[in-house]
């Protein structure tokens, strides 16, 4: 059956995969926690970020880790603009409409990429992509270890920003009590846009972390969305710590259920856990009581 020799490597794998999921979920949880919208466009935006990272490397020869430094602000701007000038106004403040708008955006972005760049799967070949760090029995790919470190760092950064910066406090205020925040003089539309921008920036960094070992095509981002939603719910909507720890947890669960149930059926582990959390503790591990 499953020998103990692979349990530790499987655990480490789960943690590293989980870290990447966590970064996607971080963006989503911020957007969800503050704007209370289920962002259907999250996957498509990740795909767009992957293409950006790809072209930065292919056309400009920039290493993805370096590219993250300017792609993050760029995508922050894109996210800000999307929320401020498209989603916000189009939605007229109705939840249902936001759903439709983000859905429409998702279709537009994904197919614009398909139209512009065709359906080919693209990859980049970096010299260090196959380097490994050996820990006991496990061969850990260097890009994945780096990704783990970067995600933890970003999560910590965001957590501090939420706690100690004015914008962070404003974001938390709007998330908790929008009317009150507005009355205290906070520009809610701006905060919404900043939050969306932060979420999109997270995706840009995720893309740069993924691209050494993953691939790019117009549908690539979609594979991460459902699992990100699971983590958002598990960790508690709007909680940075929740997204980080939830991501790691989900990564490990996925790894072990894949090991014991097979990769296909194993995917069920995540969703069953998702359902159980929703039924018994919907506020998640770190969220506010629903």
């Amino acid at each position, binding site marked *: 059956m499953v020998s103990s020799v692979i349990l530790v490597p499987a655990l480490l794998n789960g943690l590293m995969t989980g870290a990447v999921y966590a970064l996607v979920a971080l963006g989503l949880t911020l957007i969800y926690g503050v704007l209370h919208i289920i962002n259907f466009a999250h996957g498509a935006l990740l795909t767009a970020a992957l293409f950006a990272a790809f072209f930065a490397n292919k056309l400009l020869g920039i290493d993805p880790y370096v590219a993250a430094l300017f792609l993050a602000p760029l995508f922050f701007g894109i996210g800000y603009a999307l929320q401020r000038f498209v989603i916000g106004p189009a939605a007229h403040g109705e939840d249902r409409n936001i759903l439709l*708008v983000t859905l429409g955006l998702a279709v537009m972005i994904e*197919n614009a990429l*398909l139209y512009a760049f065709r359906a080919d799967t693209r990859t980049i070949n970096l010299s260090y992509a196959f380097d490994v760090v050996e820990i006991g029995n496990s061969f850990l790919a260097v890009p994945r270890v780096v990704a783990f470190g970067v995600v933890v760092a970003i999560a910590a950064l965001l957590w501090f920003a939420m706690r100690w910066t004015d914008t962070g406090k404003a974001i938390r205020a709007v998330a908790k009590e929008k009317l009150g925040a507005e009355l205290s003089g906070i520009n809610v539309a701006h905060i919404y846009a900043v939050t969306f921008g932060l979420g999109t920036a997270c995706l840009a960094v995720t893309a740069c972390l993924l691209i050494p070992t993953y691939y790019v095509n117009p549908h690539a981002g979609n594979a991460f969305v459902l699992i990100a939603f699971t983590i958002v719910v598990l960790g508690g909507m709007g909680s940075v710590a929740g997204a980080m720890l939830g991501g790691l947890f989900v990564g490990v669960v996925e790894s072990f259920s894949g090991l014991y149930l097979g990769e*296909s059926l194993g*995917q069920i582990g995540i969703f069953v856990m998702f359902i159980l959390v929703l039924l018994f503790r*919907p506020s998640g591990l770190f969220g506010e009581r629903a």
Partner: protein
Amino acid sequence: MKGLAPIATVAVLLALVPFITASNAVLNFLVMAFLIALAGQGWNILGGYGGQYSFGHAAFFGTGTYVTAVLQVRYGMNAWLCFALGIAGGALVGAVIGGLSFRSGLRGSYFALVTLAFAEVLRIVASVAPITGAGVGTLIKLDLRPEAFQFQSRAPFYWVLLALLVVSLILTRIIEDSRFGAYLVALRENEDAAKALGVDTTLVKLGAMTISAAITAAAGGFYAQYFLFVDAGIAYGPWISVEALLAPIIGGVGTVFGPLLGALVIRTLGELTKIVAGDAPGLDLVIYGSVLVAVVAFAPRGIAGLIERVRGRLTPPAAPSLERSHG
């Protein structure tokens, strides 16, 4: 819109279509539109009238499809019987998911996400379980006889589906006018207030979910008979969850004709964008997506809402009337 007259009118007009055109392309287009409309009618009961947005109606559609297909193929049962059992199966799944979710007090996005998760679980199980044929799927044998719920020409399929759709329209109308419907709308507007007034909201929601699931399952069963092939992605995939909610939202949630209008608009839009965009892959969908966004921006209450607004502008204001289609 009071009474069954509008439904009867629409039913008769639509029934005449196969006599006006012999084009199977048109009939096929309408069949697909009605299929989505039917699935959307189901969604609308729970989401439009009840305000509980489900992102996982594929769970019911897929159950209808698989029960209809598998019972025929593996146990040789009569196709119509299998279809009926498919509807029952869908209703059962709806009751279970609803029971679990509503008893835990899930509302709003939490409810939406849990339905999504259930649909995914079913999809994954269906993709590995031997009884569904796992990855290979289930193929219904070609047997073009009415007894086997298959027909030589497209028109009988069209009429059967139209009949199902009309039944769902009438059902929606009945619910709208009933006390159950009043409770449903009340809990949509303010669940806590409704509870305080003595409405057993959990039971009402459960009832709505069961009916909703049954209707969508009917659409699924029909799909199986029309295409004769089912696999996990077709049955339980996100595509149908999205279409089932898109149609009512575009057409107007909480209205009798919303899903039908929405489905026709969406499908027609799909065809038009293909024509405008030509053969370039993806371009038609880019246009489709932008029209979607534009529709929301300029017609936030859906088509039905648009109609009400126009009607409101054309008729002089009489006594203040309660707005029927809610935001």
